[in-house]
């Protein structure tokens, strides 16, 4: 992340960017496969009445199963890390604000971490 002196520190160990890229990739797959249908149903089809919306009880019954909670946890967490990584680079390249490096890093991955924690809390409590 510190650019110039990073060459020394990465001499024997590969850069930790690999970790964030792996999260980005995992999040990308989850987002690609699952978000369209979920967004279509909950964001468009149900509110607009194209399809019968599941009742509160039906949803609660679904959400209560541990498998569903796990599914929802990964559905919330991984795409956030996908966003974090991609948005960070969009800010670097799109707006050329690479000098705000640390702030952007904290905002993006911090935000993803916050969302992950919130998801964990909500799914634990339901």
């Amino acid at each position: 992340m510190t650019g110039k002196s990073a060459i020394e520190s990465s001499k024997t160990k590969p850069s930790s960017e690999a970790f964030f890229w792996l999260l980005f990739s995992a999040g990308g797959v989850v987002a690609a496969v699952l978000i369209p249908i979920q967004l279509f149903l909950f964001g468009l089809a149900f509110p607009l009445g194209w399809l019968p919306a599941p009742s509160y009880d039906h949803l609660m019954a679904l959400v209560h199963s541990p498998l569903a909670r796990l599914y929802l946890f990964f559905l919330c967490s991984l795409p956030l890390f996908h966003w974090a990584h991609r948005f960070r680079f969009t800010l670097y390249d799109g707006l050329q604000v690479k000098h705000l490096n640390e702030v952007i890093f904290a905002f993006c991955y911090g935000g993803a971490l916050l969302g992950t924690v919130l998801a964990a809390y909500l799914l634990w409590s339901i």
Partner: protein
Amino acid sequence: MADKIVLEIARYAPDRDEAPSFQSFEVPLRKEWVVLDALNHIKDKVDGTLTYRWSCRMGICGSCGMMVNGEPKLTCATFLSSYGNNARVRVEPLRYFPVVRDLVTALSDFLVKLQKVKPWLIRRDQPPLSAGEFLQTPEQLDLYKQFSMCINCTLCYAACPVVGLDQEFVGPAALALAQRYNLDNRDQGSAERLATLAHPDGIWGCTFVGECTRVCPKHVDPAGAIQQYKLTAALDWVKSFILPRGHEDQHPGAAHD
């Protein structure tokens, strides 16, 4: 009666100009002419001071890369007729490189970056001559052959926005050539290239825009090479976490054994 085409060419003389300006030249539109032919015509018959690089005129030396109507192209492979009669064709030096004069760019940055990735066969052991040649099956060749087609024309650098935004970014061609050697079963130097490649200015600077692959005249697909190496580097990072000691470069055996 004869068809004509107008070339608007960027001119820059460092001792005279602060910034490049455009000069228009009318050139006959011959069916078989490429942009390079037009430039040669101008230099021969109109303005001998026009400065540009070219050599083989057949798309293998990589010298004649320029921006033609905003697209990085080999001027020896770009036909004038594709622009139509009476068209105006803008010719500029390759983008994102410093301009030395007219259409000539400074390639020192690129050459330094190329050298950094060690684009040559690295051996840990040197078998004696009596052991004979390295043997390589067609399948082993196929693994890296596409990336070996690079002619260092730097069109990909002119296409890549990250190259323009980050001067330290190693860039598509260099990364693809590094991967060409990493994938060559005669090479044992993946570990040596790791520090340069798996670095924020190496593969991690790439955001897979994909423009490099689109403009490459030899279909090298540098974007593909970089993404493949990202996966390799990521798995390598995971391995370095799980087994920090004895983390050896996992490389498929050399051709001899």
